[in-house]
Structures are given as structure tokens and as C-alpha cells.
């Protein structure tokens, strides 16, 4: 009775049956013939289970139950049609379940056993995650793949909403293969054997507050747990100054859930677990912002030796010390990368990049990163169009004439490749302030000279000078110091 046939691989099927009589009986004679194999195949079996080929269309099965003495006492014939055969894939086997405690992520690997099936079948994998002592279902996910007639190893990641240390996590998987041309009933496989990632609350001496010293983004929902030793009890758990309701995970682990976390102070927000006998454990949570896009990125050189890039950091990240936002300047053409030493407390950010020989154009990417995220800003500059010379130094005035003088000054920098435009400001008590522009060939750490004529005799003048690039004006240097000079009497 109840002859049932199930195939796991579309080629062979396992048929099982039951015998109505309660008494003891001997071997069974099992014969089957399929329409494409006329002579029946017969064999004896003690089981009530046989494995025979899946027929193209149908099979005729004759089952003869013999008594202990071998005499046949019941015979029954069955006609098995394709539509009567169920298709249930073999339960998948988890190859590995690997925890990454730093990211609270589980990585699951399993083989799809595709070599057993024809090419191109759609396969659906249900993955179930369970947790806590009571093995409560946390989530169930369906993953899709296509079978390729080869055994493919699939990898799948799941990030827990709580640290894996908090309590044990379990994973099991089952599959459903959509054999469209198979007419019989199709069903999910059995679940795989369950795999476990034990929590700290299963270790004899396991204890601690988790996550340990982690960084999260403002607005995050965070689960923080306290694992304690056998016999201890948690009196309360505080997040910053507030006591939070506790969620029991196991006899040795409880958690609190902080929703929409706000920015922490510079030294982080303490999460304290107060245990019996005044014992205490804790962790520190740093809640901050991902870096903002650097604003007003600008690069210039004042001496053709160093390119100075500046930018506005945007919203502060609220993270300090080794968790602070870090900056690096990458130049695409040369492939050179420079990390920038930045003082978090300054509003403006500065980074120096060396001027490279024979390179005029610079394709900068300013990379900004902190434990929460990263951002970048880019800038393409032609260096000769971004010259802002250093302040002219050692301005001196000479002249032994009543109507002209010669100004000399030094600029710390290498401007041999450009022409400088220098502007002299001439002021005296009797006349209005005048500006005198002159273009001078740039030099390498040079002194520059200009002659000023048409001055008034026996007059006290104040002179100062500033320079810029002549061809592509970008910005003036600062003014030099003022130098006074009195022209000779006429």
C-alpha cells in the first residue's frame, strides 16, 4: 500500500511502500518495467524502499510480499506515472559559515550540486538565520541562482543587527529547483543541518560589552549587549547618562537597543553594564558623521616647489584622534599620493604636494575618509595658472637722483618658467598713492629690480611691492614691507 516515489535528481527515484498486515514476513520480490524497457527487472529486498530509474512516461511495479518461509502471500501491481513522482532536491550542505566579528557579518558558503541537474534550471535557496538560546528566527531570505550542470559554490553575506559575540547565531538552508518540464509535484528540499556561530555567552569565562569601541553613523540604531559570567546578574545598562530597558538574549547575555543615535562627545559615549556586587563593565561608542564633500578645493603654488591645496571641510565628523577624518591627495597623471597632516581644530584644511619636474597639469583627487565613510573631490589645474608668489622680501631702495629710484627685492621661489607681473605702490605726503606695474622675467630664487622715474625731488616716498603671474593672473602675493626713501634735491 501507499506506494510513493520521490526523485532527488530526476534520474533515479526512491519508492517506498507499506504493508498492511501486522505479522512478520520475509523478503519482498520487487519487479518493475518501464515502457521503454519491456522485460521487467526483478530483485529481492528486505527494505520497503528501493531506488529505480525515473521512467520517461510510466513504470509498472509488482510487489510480492513473502512469508518467513518464502511463500508469496500478497502481490500488488502499481502503475506509476510521471505525474505521480515527486521531485524533492537533496538537502543542501553548508560548506562553511564564517563570522567576521568586526563587522558582525556571517559569510555562508554552500555548493549548489548543479552537476546532478541539467543546465539552466532556476534554483531558489531559502536561508534562515536564528538566534538566542531559544533559537528564534531572525530572518529568512530567498536567494536565486541558475544551475549550470556544474557544482558551483555560492557565497552569501548577512550582517547582524547585533554583534555576533552577543549570543549564538544559527543558519540553515534549503532549496527549490524549478524543473519546468517535470510534471510531477515539486517541493522544497529538507533543511540543511544547522550551523552555529557560538556567542561569548557560551564560553565558560566569556564576558564583556559588545561592540567594543566601535564607530557608527549618527542616526544609526545600535544594539549593545552585556555578556556576563554564570551567577552574575545585570542590574542595569546605561547609554550615556540614561538607563535603557534590557532585552534578554540568554541566561548570560542581555542587550539594549539605542535608536537614532545622536553624535557622541569627543571621548565617545560610554555604555555601562552594572552587574551585581558593584562590578562594572562597559564599552565606548563613537557616533559621528561620514566625511562631508570637501568644499572650495583650490590649489596654487607660491614657489613652484610645493603646491598648496586648501579646502573647507564641511560638516565636522565629530570623530577625533585615531578615528578622525583623514585626507590624502592623489595626482592621477603621476600616480603620486600624499597623505595630509591636518589639524582637526582648524576650520581651513591645507595639504602640500610637491611640484613634479616637467609636469604642468595636475589632476588632483582629494580623498577624505573616516571609519564611517569616504568622499572625494577632484580638481584639474594648470600650475602656471595658479601662481601666487611668496611675499617679496628684503625690499631696498637705491638711487642718487632727484627724480628716479631703483627698487630691489627678493622672492623665495623658482619662477624661471614664467614672467612675473610686479606692482609697486608709491606714496608720499604730497601726492596720491600711485601704482606702477612692470613685467619681469621670473628667476630662480632671484632678486628683482625696477626703476621708477618721474619722481619729485627732495620728497620722502614710501614704497612697497607685490607680484603675480603675468600671463595667467591668479592672485597677488601679499605686499612686501614698506620701504621709505627721500629723493635728492634737484
Amino acid at each position, binding site marked *: 500500500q501507499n506506494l510513493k516515489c520521490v526523485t532527488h535528481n530526476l534520474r533515479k527515484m526512491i519508492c517506498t511502500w507499506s504493508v498492511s498486515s501486522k505479522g512478520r514476513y520475509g523478503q519482498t520480490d520487487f519487479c518493475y518495467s518501464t515502457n521503454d524497457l519491456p522485460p521487467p527487472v526483478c530483485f529481492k529486498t528486505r527494505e520497503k524502499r528501493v531506488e529505480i530509474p525515473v521512467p520517461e512516461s510510466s513504470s509498472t511495479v509488482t510487489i510480492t510480499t513473502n512469508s518467513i518461509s518464502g511463500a508469496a502471500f500478497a502481490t500488488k501491481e502499481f502503475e506509476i506515472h510521471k505525474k505521480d513522482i515527486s521531485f524533492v532536491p537533496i538537502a543542501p550542505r553548508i560548506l562553511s559559515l564564517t563570522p567576521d566579528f568586526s563587522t558582525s557579518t556571517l559569510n555562508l558558503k554552500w555548493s549548489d550540486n548543479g552537476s546532478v541537474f541539467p543546465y539552466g534550471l532556476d534554483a531558489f535557496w531559502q536561508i534562515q538565520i536564528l538566534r538566542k538560546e531559544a533559537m528564534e528566527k531572525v530572518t529568512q531570505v530567498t536567494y536565486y541562482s541558475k544551475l549550470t550542470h556544474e557544482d558551483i559554490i555560492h557565497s552569501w553575506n548577512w550582517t547582524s543587527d547585533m554583534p555576533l559575540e552577543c549570543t549564538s547565531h544559527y543558519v540553515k538552508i534549503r532549496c527549490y529547483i524549478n524543473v519546468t518540464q517535470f510534471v510531477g509535484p515539486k517541493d522544497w528540499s529538507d533543511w540543511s543541518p544547522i550551523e552555529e556561530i557560538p556567542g561569548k555567552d557560551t564560553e565558560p569565562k566569556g564576558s564583556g560589552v559588545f561592540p567594543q569601541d566601535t564607530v557608527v553613523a549618527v542616526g544609526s540604531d545600535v544594539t549593545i549587549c552585556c555578556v556576563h559570567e554564570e551567577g552574575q546578574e545585570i542590574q542595569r545598562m546605561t547609554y550615556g547618562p540614561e538607563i535603557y530597558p534590557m532585552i534578554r538574549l540568554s541566561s548570560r547575555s542581555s542587550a539594549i537597543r539605542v535608536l537614532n543615535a545622536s553624535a557622541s562627545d569627543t571621548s*565617545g559615549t560610554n555604555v555601562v553594564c552594572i552587574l551585581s556586587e558593584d562590578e562594572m*563593565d562597559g564599552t565606548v561608542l563613537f557616533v559621528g558623521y561620514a566625511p562631508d564633500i570637501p568644499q572650495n578645493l583650490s590649489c596654487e603654488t607660491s614657489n613652484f616647489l610645493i603646491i598648496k591645496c586648501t579646502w573647507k571641510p564641511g560638516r565636522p565628523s565629530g570623530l577625533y584622534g585615531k578615528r578622525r577624518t583623514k585626507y590624502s591627495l592623489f595626482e592621477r597623471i603621476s600616480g603620486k599620493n600624499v597623505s595630509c597632516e591636518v589639524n582637526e581644530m582648524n576650520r581651513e584644511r591645507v595639504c602640500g604636494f610637491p611640484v613634479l619636474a616637467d609636469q604642468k597639469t595636475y589632476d588632483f583627487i582629494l580623498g577624505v575618509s573616516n571609519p564611517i565613510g569616504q568622499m572625494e573631490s577632484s580638481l584639474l589645474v594648470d600650475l602656471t595658472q595658479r601662481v601666487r608668489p611668496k611675499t617679496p622680501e628684503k625690499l631696498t631702495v637705491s638711487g642718487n637722483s632727484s627724480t628716479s629710484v631703483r627698487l630691489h627685492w627678493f622672492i623665495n621661489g623658482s619662477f624661471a618658467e614664467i614672467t612675473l607681473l610686479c606692482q609697486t605702490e608709491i606714496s608720499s605726503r604730497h601726492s596720491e598713492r600711485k601704482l606702477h606695474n612692470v613685467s619681469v622675467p621670473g628667476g630662480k630664487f632671484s632678486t628683482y629690480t625696477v626703476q621708477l622715474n618721474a619722481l619729485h625731488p627732495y620728497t620722502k616716498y614710501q614704497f612697497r611691492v607685490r607680484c603675480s603671474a603675468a600671463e595667467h593672473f591668479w592672485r597677488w602675493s601679499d605686499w612686501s614691507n614698506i620701504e621709505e626713501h627721500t629723493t635728492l634735491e634737484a
Partner: protein
Amino acid sequence: MAAADSPSAALRRRDLCSRGIRLAGKMRSDVIDLLDTYVEQQGLDASASVAAVEGVPAAAAERWDEQTGPQRLLENLAAYRAFRALLAQMLEEQREQLGEADAAVGRALAAILLQVSAFAYHLEELLRLESRGVPSEEGAAPPPPPHLSLFERKLRGLGVLRELAQWAVRSARDLRQLAKPSPGSGAAPSPAESP
């Protein structure tokens, strides 16, 4: 004291002791101020009880009354050398964890570290006066800081500062003991005791 004091040695000791007492008093008040700032900066509960912290010398001394002068000095010196290393560790952790942010605590820590170093030097002076060799620091390098979580480090810092404040009190009492004239020294009574 090993031998009867000469009047000049007794005067020198009393001078060093009274200056040491003033330094200990200043150090204590600075540590108390820093404690309040530290607790606030680190988000700790001021009333939190901190178990004895490994590597932090305990100020409480059994049979304190029976200690000899050199014993007092040697115990004090060992303690302040330990605090010097502990405070230097705390300073390094402040820089690592906070960078330039909230530098006030860092500056206060550095100031107290200077005072602790000065006080240790002061104790060495007193030991030399007692014609006792000053224990060398080689080989007495502080053990590497145990790997602690951030929260444990915060508590440890609290423990260090609390114990240092206790030590400042104890050191003042020790120095007052030392300042008392030893028998037969014939020294004039200290100004404090003059009628």
C-alpha cells in the same frame, strides 16, 4: 634616621620636607581639579567605584606609623616613578584618542606629570640627604600597558588620578614625619614649633 643629624643636615631636610609638603599640596589640588574635568570629558559617573587598578601603587599603607624615614622615602619614590609612567601613558592615550580636540585635559595631565617628576626628583634629593643610595631606574621600566578596552582605560585613568590624589595626602604626612627632628640632633626646633 641612620645617624644623629648634624644641625645643617636637619635644617636642609626640614627645608626639603616643607617644600615637598607644599608641592604635594599643590599637586593634590591640581589632581582634584583634573579629576572633575576628566570625569566629565570621559563621560564617567563620578561616583563609579573603580576596583584596584593593576600597576597603580596603593596609597594605603599597613603599619604606616612604624615605617622608618628611608622606607617612607623609598615607597614614595617608587610610587611617583610609577605614576610618572602611568600619567605618560594616559597622555599618549589622550593624544591617540582625541588628537587636538579637548586639549585642556591633555595640558592639565602634562602639568601634573611635570609635578610628579619634580616630586620624584625631590624625594631623590631627600634620599641622598639620608646618605641612602637612590634606586636606579634601569630595569624598573614600567610593564607594557595591558591591552584594555577604551572603557577600561577610562576607568583606569580615573583610578590613577584618584590614587595619585591619595598619595599626595600620604606624602605630605610622610614628609611631616620626616621633618620632625631626630633625637640628639640638637637642632633648633622648626619655625612651626617655635613658641
